[in-house]
């Protein structure tokens, strides 16, 4: 399952790019658990969310300005 991991300023954002939401959620949980077992402890972990665009119906390019960390 393809994913992007964006690491900046003590923050790790994960974007799963294929599969279903449930599969993505499970993959993210697996990644976080793996990081935890390797000694990387986080102070806060957000809930896994569906990726939504505010205005998906408009014909408009959605481009991330800085490495895609803003989702």
């Amino acid at each position, binding site marked *: 399952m393809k994913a992007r*991991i*964006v690491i900046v300023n003590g923050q790790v*954002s994960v*974007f*799963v*790019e294929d599969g279903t939401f449930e599969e993505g959620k499970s993959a993210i949980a697996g990644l976080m658990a793996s990081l935890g077992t390797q000694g*990387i402890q986080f102070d806060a*972990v957000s809930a896994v969310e569906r990726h939504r665009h505010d205005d998906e119906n408009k014909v408009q390019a959605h481009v991330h300005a*800085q490495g*895609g960390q803003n989702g």
Partner: protein
Amino acid sequence: MPCNAVATATATVAQEHLAKLLTDEVVSQVVVEYLQKTYSNEAARLQDLYASHSRRAAQGVSIVMKNFLVNIRQGRVSVTGSRRYGTDQAEVDALASELQNLLMSAAGILFQNQVMQAVAAQYTVTEQQYAPNGALVLTVNL
């Protein structure tokens, strides 16, 4: 970069925990190198750091440069300017802020490396690049 994410989450490490990655060795190297590069006319010299009351050797890093004394403990920077040379408070504050930002940036890079190694130990990383804001972007197969 087009975004096709079906699921997303973000995990955060607090700045004070990030600062724990900054060992005295790393701090000495990063700060001395920076000071020598930025203030090339002034020699930055490491010295032993002592606890203020007991006068025993203390953990941390102490650097003397020009008319400044820089002490760094657990990622926190304290700068003192010598009155004898007429150092003003704005200069002291500016240097402290500059070094604090430098160290947080160094801690961020150490954290990136730590996460990258942990990810690579378990998953296949197919691409690695840096975004203009310094973010490390890994493409992986989860």
